[in-house]
């Protein structure tokens, strides 16, 4: 790739951050973001022109987010984390909704969370999502849809409503 790397940071930084935070949580997500762009910067000169840069970055981000989580799991005493499948938080005021969203995403079962992160936040088609999380594209689509349905329940919203 002969384009300035800064373009990739500016264009895709926000998308990559959402994917990292959805998979690894708020604080570890930020670490994963740095690891993602550092790895991407290293590989950038050798990247084929015409590559879908966003999909490439989202794939790296998914791997780095998992790496950061694993590194933490090796280091930390496992207390205080949001248990998988816990009920999403509801009933906050509008001002608190952004943080609530991340907590609701964090509370999704792992596969749903990864599928929502990769497809709805990262923009990857479900066959590519399936290649990263395992299983079939249909199963990934189901997990993504279930995840979004759970988020909708957490927010008491229906399709078509404004955020």
């Amino acid at each position, binding site marked *: 790739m002969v384009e300035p790397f800064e373009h990739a940071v500016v264009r895709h930084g926000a998308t990559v951050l959402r994917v990292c935070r959805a998979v690894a949580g708020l604080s570890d997500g930020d670490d994963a973001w740095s690891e993602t762009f550092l790895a991407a910067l290293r590989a950038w*000169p050798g990247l084929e022109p015409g590559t879908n840069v966003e999909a490439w970055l989202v794939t790296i981000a998914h791997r780095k987010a998992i790496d950061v989580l694993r590194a933490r799991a090796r280091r930390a005493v496992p207390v205080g984390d949001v248990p998988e499948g816990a009920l999403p938080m509801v009933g906050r005021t509008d001002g608190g909704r952004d943080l609530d969203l991340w907590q609701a995403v964090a509370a999704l079962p792992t596969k749903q969370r990864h599928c929502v992160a990769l497809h709805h936040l990262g923009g990857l088609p479900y066959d590519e999502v399936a290649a990263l999380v395992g299983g079939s594209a249909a199963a990934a689509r189901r997990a993504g849809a279930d995840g979004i349905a759970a988020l909708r329940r957490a927010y008491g919203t229906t399709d078509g409503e404004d955020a």
Partner: protein
Amino acid sequence: MTHEIARDPALPRWPSGLPVPPDGDLAALQATLARRAQDDGLLDVAYRTVDAPLGPLLLAATSAGLVRVAFEVQDHERVLEDLAARVSPRVLHAPARLDGVARELDEYFAGRRRAFDVPVDLRLLAGFRHAVVEHLADIAYGRTASYAAVAAAAGSPRAVRAVGTACALNPVPIVLPCHRVVRSDGTPGQYAGGAAAKVALLELEQRVGA
């Protein structure tokens, strides 16, 4: 920043009815990235812009030194693309490496500095052009030299036009003072930043040097 890079449209696949996830402080993350890239030896080209009396200037540096100073009329976005193609695509907005240059430029425009002592990387020039630009700083602050005189000093008295080309391609104007090279009749001649910018720099040096 004087140039805009288009961002992806926000979350085309995010279902309506759900709040849009926030981006958080991307600026802080970008600063961390620049620092870590520098530490890991991956920051091939660092750049920033500074506001100068002549308008915004783009400054870019390799690990060897200042590699580019560009005026707004030169189109900063095109300059970055040129650096990506000719030096390395590992180009990041990373102001820290340019702090020294920015400070010296401030002092220069305030009339408190007559010569720059930041390291310069002239890898964008080769041969005769490199030789000409390298010796531009021999022309003292507040003085001028004709294209013909510079050609003679470079040992090629007939290469007057080639001196003009070298000055036009000077990758680090102001810091290496191609604005001090003028026509034999004393008129300023052309300048990468525009003829008015050349006149303004010469007038600044006349005023301060007097």
